């Protein structure tokens, strides 16, 4: 099982961060790996509700991901399933969990994208993924310039 974790501190109260994550209007402002536009943003933030985001990256390609909300606890936590449309990036279904914690300066956000490459990790499950890639990263790879070391676990 492979996952990716990211933690950030934000100078905004949890309810504002939560709305930025769970409303179509909010999502349209930040979603995507570069400054390319968000073309479609839909979010029905309740358990069983769906989200769908379509965006264009600066290389001109369009990408779409969608999923279902599994947990919605305002303003603390949201969990959803995740799938890329067309399955180019990753054919399987993964899981996204975002937890917000109130801190003195505002909010500490923890994002975990897990079950990446799920079918494959299921096949090789007895091996156990925890730490494997992280270790291999340290063992085999020289740090690439201008790319931050992945926080893969």
């Amino acid at each position, binding site marked *: 099982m*492979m996952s*990716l974790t*990211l933690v*950030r501190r*934000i*100078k*905004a*109260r949890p309810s*504002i*961060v939560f*709305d*930025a*994550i769970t409303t179509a209007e*909010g999502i349209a*402002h*930040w*979603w*995507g*790996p*570069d400054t390319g536009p968000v073309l479609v943003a839909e979010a029905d933030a309740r358990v069983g509700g769906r989200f769908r985001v379509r965006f264009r990256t600066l290389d001109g390609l369009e990408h779409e991901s969608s999923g279902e909300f599994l947990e919605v606890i305002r303003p603390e936590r949201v969990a959803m399933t995740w799938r890329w449309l067309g399955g180019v*990036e990753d*054919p399987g279904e993964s899981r996204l969990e975002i937890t917000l914690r109130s801190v003195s300066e*505002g*909010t500490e*956000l923890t*994002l975990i*994208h897990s079950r*990446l*490459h799920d079918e*494959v*990790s299921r*096949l*090789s*499950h*007895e*091996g*156990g*993924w925890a730490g*494997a*890639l992280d*270790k*291999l*990263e340290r*063992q*085999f*790879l020289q740090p690439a310039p201008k*790319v*931050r070391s*992945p*926080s*893969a676990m």
Partner: protein
Amino acid sequence: MANYQDRLDRTFGALGDPTRRAMLARLERADGASVSELAKPFSIKLPAVMKHLDVLADAGLVTRSKSGRVVTVRLRPQPMREAMEWLRHYERFWSESVDRLVGYAESKETEARSKRR
């Protein structure tokens, strides 16, 4: 790029076994090892070792070369780089997205505070 997912599947599949990961780690420390040297730390029989090596070779993670009666196994890290690169796509996606989320949420916070005054 048609075989990209196949290659990733093979790489991740090969890496999903602790014995094979230990073999790779061993090969990383030494510049190549014979099959019997590789087999030594494991309480498994030679045919099982050969089977693991087949999986690693299929994934392109090791090469084998024969000189006389000795087969030397060497690490080939390229597929690993590709696997890491795949993971980096996600890392970049979230890192960049969350950077903008931070900017957006902080501007909303400033807005909310100025309204209150």
